[in-house]
């Protein structure tokens, strides 16, 4: 039997880079850096840039503005958690790296919550919607299967009786 190895995206890109000789440097730097592990590379469900869910129920949220004692890591994260209806007990907050993907990260002028409240709420709400849809999908299929199995049981039952 041939040996089948499971390979994640990061390793694939790295191997691909080795083979093609093109993008090896950028990838190696990213995966070798122990200082910062982006939440995207953690195991679990990553519905959007700011939300990461693990199977054990832990939730990691990203604060994209700088914390200087004004409590931004509480306020931005609680805006997400509130919409997500995540239990704060299982929420941990990580600081975002400086990157344009997070949008404007200027932390000044008391504007962080004023400008980021709505986007953050949407991050939580979309993540919750995805979970609800997935659950509904699963339950619908599950209920179909149940109905089928209960039907077949009923049939068996009637056959036995007669």
């Amino acid at each position: 039997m041939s040996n089948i190895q499971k390979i994640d995206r990061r390793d694939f890109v790295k191997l691909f880079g080795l083979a093609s000789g093109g993008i090896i440097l950028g990838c190696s730097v990213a995966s070798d850096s122990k200082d910062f592990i982006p939440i995207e590379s953690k195991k679990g469900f990553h519905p959007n840039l700011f939300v990461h869910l693990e199977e054990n129920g832990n939730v990691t949220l990203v604060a994209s503005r700088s914390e200087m004692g004004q409590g931004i890591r509480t306020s931005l994260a609680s805006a997400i958690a509130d919409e997500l209806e995540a239990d704060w007990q299982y929420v941990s907050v990580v600081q975002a790296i400086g990157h344009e993907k997070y949008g404007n990260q200027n932390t000044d002028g008391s504007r962080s919550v004023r400008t980021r409240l709505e986007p953050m709420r949407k991050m939580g709400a979309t993540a919750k919607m995805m979970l609800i849809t997935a659950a509904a999908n699963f339950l619908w299929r599950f209920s179909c299967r149940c109905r089928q199995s209960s039907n077949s049981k009923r049939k068996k039952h009637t056959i036995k009786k007669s």
Partner: protein
Amino acid sequence: MDINLSINGKSHAVQVQEDMPLLWAIRDIVGLTGTKFGCGVSQCGACSVLVDGRLTKSCSVSVIDAVEKEIFTIEGNSENLEFLRQAWTDGNVPQCGYCQSGQLIAATSLLDTIENPTDKDIDKAMSANICRCGTYTRIKKAIHTAVKLKNQTL
């Protein structure tokens, strides 16, 4: 004038005025910048260090008061501080982090005196350390975690 300061078990000869605040000497002369300058008037606890095991606001004592005494800062190593560091990491305690070295030193002092502190003990011991981010609940939780970690390993 040469003044000998013993910080974290290491002796440092510093050439400073006798009445220089201890914090200045620790940060600017010795170069241990883990201890922070907060208010400068002994109100916030960011500059907390242990002097002969006693919780001290280093901004408000003179260098001469710490001579021939053992100074313990956040860069030091003690058993209790190790457990607290672990609990702090596990509990994701700091936000901006500025007050946390003072918080950790105050917590070390607490665990040095009371082995199994209650919520009330923690409130009392940590009340002199202010955190603008409001990490108090996580700090309290982390101190309990540190005690648990310690009891597990011992």
